[in-house]
Structures are given as structure tokens and as C-alpha cells.
């Protein structure tokens, strides 16, 4: 019996076809695993299934009822999001029963009742926290379990969707969660389980659906599936003959040397970067890749270890020092850390380079305008003029402004943190080409952080895999995807 059914679902975002005519059905009493690389369309699918997004095309049927006609059917679906989004300064019980609607407390929140109701749930998950503990004071593993408890606290659900629910769980907590998931299955409810961890999928799942580039590429009973088959389907190795973008002009000169670096989210990391080289960093969300690079750049603190830039000891914890010594970081979160939204493209470009645009004491508007127009032309930024506020540009064009403004400072090291996040396929290739050009022609050392396996493999000369803040291997660009995938999910390579 199909409890949840999606028929011919298509979802389009500007420049990206996120879901391409997907058909998928979920049965009662079944654990259905979904796997795919980042950007494959898993999250978009989930958001369509939970009613967050409305697909342009297609139908979603819950219990045979079209959700377009009856949106309240979405209440049958419980959802555990990937990222922890609890209220840190509220109690465990309050978080579980938020927004208190279905708990029958008509307007008044009865704390005692809330806490009493929370106790059996906490016991079931063998959680050693009190209902009145504040979320911020309990462990991350407990927090992630609370997320799952919150989803099932409203008992009238029939489908439970878990989006990578184990990324921060300890092994014991994961076991408890799995036992519970099996229990739900025995209650004849349906479970959708999304994970990057293949062992978990084989341990828990009944069937698996594999996504790639917004399409459902494979479906199988897990009894008939093998790990290599899944990885082949997931990565689509037959399209591997695509163009490569790694640097073909690497100098012997070491540019950046990081030795035994430890910070809050990474431990004992060492690596070297040569002039003209593109070094890829691969890892899942939470592997510490962004934190590592931000620490080297001086944005986050370094606890111990040393950094040398061109043989010279590099000061830590000072972004101004890094920038004036030619070390630039291009952030993953352009909106939060990259652009100055209300300012014009001109002002966004000149902000990194004002010293070179001055006539005596004051900024020369003429020089500033020239440099901005230069960047706009060089990087082919699509805008009517340089006075437009940057927030009105598309993501790809914003990224080009950010790259351009670093380039006018003659950088030595450039860190690209997820440079193609939210960017369409055409612009992606443009950015790859740009990175290659910068490395080969200007001898810039490039560090590329990406969670897209294809991207890292296509662009890097060497690849370092991180898992849980530790280095899990260093690979040449000829490494297979299987090797890399193992390393980023924490399986040590020999």
C-alpha cells in the first residue's frame, strides 16, 4: 500500500533544474533510503514532499489524496531536518512540544504537563537529560536525537523523513535511533532515510533510490544492491570523460606550508601548497574544512601549530595581515560573509583595494570607476553599470565580483570555499576555467573546498579528504571516486 506517492515532480530554480520528472513511491512498513551527491536533488525532493516547496509540475499524493486539493495532508508527514534548528535557550520539553498546538494546552503553556509528557519520550531514547535542561547545555548528539523526538512527538504522523540524522550522533545514540526506526517500521509506518553513510543504509534500509542531477537514476531492493553498484550509479562514472580543469603548470616552489594545525573544529592538520597548484579539500558538512581554511586565513582562532607563507611565519588571527600578505579567502556563504549588499558593485570591488585608488588623502572617483569597470569587463559580469547595488546581481555574478576584487590585489593564495554553490552549470564551468587560468598563468596557489565530488576531482591536482576535523588521506587527481568517497565518510584508506 502506497502511503506517499510523487508523480512526475519537476522543480525549477533560476538556472537549475533541481528535480526532473521524478516518480517515487513510499510503502507502509518500509524503510526507503535515498542517496545522491550534494546537489542531486534530495533536499528539493524532501521539501516538495513536506510541502515547503510546491513543484511546478506533477502531483503528490498522501494516502491517495492529492495534496494540491488538501494541504492538511502534509500533517501526516514528520520531518527531521539535517541541521540542528532547536531553540538553544528553551528547555528540552518546550523544544519537543513546540508549537504546543497539538498538545492541548489552549493558549496557556503548562510547563509541568510538558515536562511530564517529555519524560517517557526521553526514557525511550535512553537520553540522560532532564526535561527542564536548556538545549544549549546538552551534548550535540543529544540535540540531534531531540530533533528526531520532536518530529515524532505528534503521534498522528504516518511518514517519517530523516535527513542525515546521524551526522553528529555517537555510535550508541545512533543505535538507539535505529532501534526506534525499526519499531516505527513495525507499526506499519513509512520511513524515508537520507544518508551519505553506506553502512547505515545497508544496516537499516529495505529499498534504495539513487538521485543524480535532479533525476532518479536507480531504484533497487537493498538485498540485491552492492556498494560499488550504488557508487557507480551515484557518481555516474560513464560521464567521466568530461573536461578536466586541474593546473598543468605547477612550480616546485612551496607557497603555503601548514604544520600540525589544531583549532576548535580540526585537529593536527598538515599540508603543503605549491605555486600554481590547485589543492582540493573534500569532506562532508561538519568535516571542518571551512573552519580549517578560515582559521588559516585568520578569521577563526588557531590553538596550536604553524603556518608559513613563502617560508615566512604567518601571523594567525588577523585577517588584515593575511590580506596584506596576499592570502585571500572567498567565503562559501556569499550573503553572510561575502557581499556588502546595499553598496554598489563599484564600492564592493574597491573595498579591498582603496590604498591603490587614492589621490593623496582622498579616494579618486575616476580611478575607482576605472578599476570597477576593468573587473566587470575582465570577468564578464552581467550588469548595466557599476553603480547597481550588488544584491541585485545573480549568485554567479556576485561570485565573479568577489573573485575580481581579490584579483586586483595580486593575491598569492586564494581559498575558494564552495565557489559554485547555488550556481548553474554554465557558470560553473566558467569558474573552473578561471581557477585553472589563475593557477597556470599567475602562479597563484589555489585551495578549493567543495562537497561536490565531481568538482574536486575535475579541478584539483591533489585532494585532501577530511572527516571529523581530521585528515583522512591525501590523493592524487587520478584517485577514484570510490577511494575519495570512502575517505570522506571516515573509512581509512590503506
Amino acid at each position, binding site marked *: 500500500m502506497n502511503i506517499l506517492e510523487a508523480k512526475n515532480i519537476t522543480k525549477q530554480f533560476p538556472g537549475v533544474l533541481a528535480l526532473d520528472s521524478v516518480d517515487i513511491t513510499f510503502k507502509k512498513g518500509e524503510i526507503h533510503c535515498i542517496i545522491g551527491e550534494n546537489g542531486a536533488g534530495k533536499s528539493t525532493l524532501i521539501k516538495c514532499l513536506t510541502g515547503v516547496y510546491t513543484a511546478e509540475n506533477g502531483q503528490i499524493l498522501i494516502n491517495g489524496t492529492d495534496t494540491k486539493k488538501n494541504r492538511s495532508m502534509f500533517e501526516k508527514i514528520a520531518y527531521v531536518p539535517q541541521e540542528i534548528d532547536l531553540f538553544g535557550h528553551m528547555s528540552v520539553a518546550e523544544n519537543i512540544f513546540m508549537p504546543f498546538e497539538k498538545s492541548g494546552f489552549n493558549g496557556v503553556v503548562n510547563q509541568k504537563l510538558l515536562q511530564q509528557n517529555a519524560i517517557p519520550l526521553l526514557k525511550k531514547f535512553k537520553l540522560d537529560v532532564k526535561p527542564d535542561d536548556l538545549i544549549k547545555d546538552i551534548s550535540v548528539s543529544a540535540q540531534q536525537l531531540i530533533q528526531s523526538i520532536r518530529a515524532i512527538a505528534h503521534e498522528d504522523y504516518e511518514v517519517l523523513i530523516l535527513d542525515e540524522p546521524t551526522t553528529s550522533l555517537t555510535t550508541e545514540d545512533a543505535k538507539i535511533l535505529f532501534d526506534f526506526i525499526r519499531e516505527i517500521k513495525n507499526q506499519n509506518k513509512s520511513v524515508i532515510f537520507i544518508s551519505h553513510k553506506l553502512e547505515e543504509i545497508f544496516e537499516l534500509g529495505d529499498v534504495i533510490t539513487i538521485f543524480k542531477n535532479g533525476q532518479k537514476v536507480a531504484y533497487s531492493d537493498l538485498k540485491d544492491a552492492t556498494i560499488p553498484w550504488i557508487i557507480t550509479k551515484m557518481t555516474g562514472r560513464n560521464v567521466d570523460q568530461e573536461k578536466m580543469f586541474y593546473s598543468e603548470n605547477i612550480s616546485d616552489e612551496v607557497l603555503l606550508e601548514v604544520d600540525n594545525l589544531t583549532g576548535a573544529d580540526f585537529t593536527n592538520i598538515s599540508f603543503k601548497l605549491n605555486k600554481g597548484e590547485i589543492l582540493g579539500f573534500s569532506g562532508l558538512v561538519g568535516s571542518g574544512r571551512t573552519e580549517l581554511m578560515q582559521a588559516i*586565513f585568520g*578569521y577563526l582562532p588557531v590553538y596550536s601549530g604553524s603556518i608559513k607563507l613563502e617560508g615566512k611565519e604567518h601571523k594567525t588571527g588577523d*585577517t*588584515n595581515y*593575511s*590580506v*596584506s600578505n596576499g592570502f585571500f*579567502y572567498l*567565503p562559501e556563504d556569499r550573503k*553572510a*560573509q*561575502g*557581499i*556588502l*549588499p*546595499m*553598496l554598489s558593485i563599484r*564600492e564592493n570591488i*574597491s*573595498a*579591498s583595494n*582603496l*590604498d591603490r585608488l*587614492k589621490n593623496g*588623502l*582622498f*579616494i579618486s572617483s575616476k580611478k575607482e570607476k576605472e578599476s570597477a569597470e576593468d573587473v566587470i569587463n575582465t570577468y564578464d559580469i552581467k550588469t548595466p553599470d557599476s553603480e547597481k547595488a550588488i544584491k541585485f546581481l545573480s549568485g554567479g555574478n556576485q561570485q565573479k565580483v568577489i573573485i575580481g576584487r581579490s584579483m586586483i590585489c595580486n593575491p598569492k593564495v586564494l581559498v575558494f570555499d564552495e565557489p559554485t554553490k547555488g550556481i548553474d552549470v554554465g557558470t560553473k564551468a566558467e569558474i573552473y576555467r578561471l581557477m585553472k587560468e589563475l593557477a597556470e598563468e599567475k602562479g597563484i596557489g589555489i585551495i578549493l573546498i567543495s562537497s561536490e565530488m565531481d568538482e574536486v576531482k575535475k579541478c584539483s591536482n591533489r585532494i585532501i579528504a577530511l572527516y571529523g576535523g581530521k585528515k583522512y588521506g591525501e590523493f592524487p587527481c587520478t584517485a577514484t571516486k570510490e577511494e575519495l568517497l570512502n575517505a570522506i565518510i571516515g573509512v581509512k584508506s590503506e
Partner: protein
Amino acid sequence: MNNNLLKNNTLINMMKRSTLTAISMVLFLMIIIASIVSPYFLDKYNLQSLIRDLAFIGMIGIGQSLLLLVGELDLSVGKIASLCGILAGMMMVNYGVNSYLAMLIALVLGVIFGTINGLLITKLRLNAMVATIGMQGVYGGINLVLTKGKAITGIPENIYMLGKGHIASIPIPFLFTVGVLVIILFLTKKTKIGRYIYAIGNNKEAAKILGIKVDKIRVIIYSIVGAISALAGILYVARLGSSQSSIGGNWPMNSIASAVIGGVALNGGIGNPAGALVGAAIISVISNLIVLLGVNVYWQSAVSGFVVVLAISFSSLSAIISEKKQKKIKLESVDK
């Protein structure tokens, strides 16, 4: 439909494009209304005293707008002003220091007080509002310890003209305010620091990643605001002919109000310090008019408060109106 949008009320369009233009038009309108309803409004003496009043709020407002541009504020401006006025007065009267030298020293002290504010807020990572509420208590307290609440009289008469005098009928304090505005406009529009101020106000984290020394810039702004407060305090002493601890009592709130009326965003990144001067003028015209019209003394504060709220809502009102208009146009095109 596009045609329709283009025909959209040009007045509203103009106001949307620049808050400064909009708010200047409001001021102009208010002056016209004021001169119609009260025959005394355009009287030379009345205008001079109005302009002298607005000079002080305007000057502090210009400083305050620098802080608002990075998303912060300073509530101790009034107390710094009165403390610097007191210190200048004591140097002149009690220690016989040359009056111009005393004023210069007081100005330097204002810079120091501002820097202390800035260092506390950046180094201890304090919230600007709470920290400066605390510091206003400290500066006000020192003030009381020094004066026991009594005014310092006998200020040398040679500085009176700085507060009371005119050049070509324009009150001298106003000329100082214009001078401060010119310097601050140069700073914000033409120098590195100015650009960094807007960058920080737009996105503090992005500014850090650009290599901007965010905390250093913040401290610099606090010291500039300290200097401006001290200058206003000293000029006020010259205007009164005595140093009083009550100077600047309503400056913190009025300076923030004038900056906000002038289109400076409370959470940073948007606005022009010149707007603060226009905002100050609006506030001064309102309070002047209330007096001229003989509004009951007990009602004056309520009326002026209400008109200030009206003035602030003016810029957001234009946005609301144009949104409604767009909605209407869109709905009409859908119906067809």
C-alpha cells in the same frame, strides 16, 4: 503594465530614490506651513535662535549618524559634552588657563572619553547601547563630583562670541556645525575610513574577511563622536556664559532622532550624515512652532513627540504607498 509603473507618482518615486531629498522637502513644507500659521516664524530674531538651537542637535546628530552607520550608537554624548564644558570652564576660571588653550584641551579630553567608550565596547565586546548608558552615568557622576551640581560662572567674555555671535547674521555655532558636516562628509565619501564605515555597516563579517580592521574603525568613530560632543559642549558654555552640568540632557535622544529622521538606518549601512542636519532642523522647527503657537506648556512634549514619530514614518509611508500601488497594478493585470 510597465507604462503604468513608469507613470507612478513622480513625487513618491523621488522620495523613494533618496530619503535625503524626501526629508528636505518635508522640511521645506514645514517651513512654509510654519510661516503661514505664525507671523513671527520668519522674524529674524526667531530664525536666529532656531538655527542656534538646531546647530547643537545637528552637530551631535552628525556624529551619531556615523555610529548608526556601523550599527551602533552612543548615549553618553550629552554627558561627555557637559563634562568637557565643565572641565574647560574650570581650567579657565579656577586655573586661569588661556581660554582657547582650555577649549583645545577639553576637545582632546572629549576624544579620550570617546576612545574609552570605543575601547570598552570593542575589547570587552559590549553592546553599544548598554555600555554607553553605563558610561553616561560615569561621565555624569564625575561631573557632579567636580561641580557639586553648581554652575561655573565667570567664563572669560572673549569666548562668548563663539556661542552668541553672528557672522553675516548667521549664528556662529551653526557655522561650526556646517564645518563639522563638511569634514564628516569628506570623511565618509572620500576616504578609506568612510568606505570602511559603510562596509562594516553593510556586513561586518564580510568586512572582516576583506581584511578591514573592524574594531579599529569602530574605536576611531567613537573618538570622533567624543570630539564632536566636546565641541558642542564647549560652544554651549560659550553660549550660556557659564558651565552647567545640565548641558546636553536631551542630546542623546534628539541626535538619534534627527539622524533617523534624516534617513540613517538604525541597523547600519544606509544613510547620509547630512540627513542628520535636516532631521535636526525638522525637530527644531517643530519645537519652535509649538512655542510660537502658544501650545500649553504641559502639552508641548507630547505634541513634539508625536510630530517626530510622524516625521520618521514619512519615509516608510512612501514605501508602503508604492507597494500598495504595485499590488493594485499587478492585480488589475491578473484580472484581465
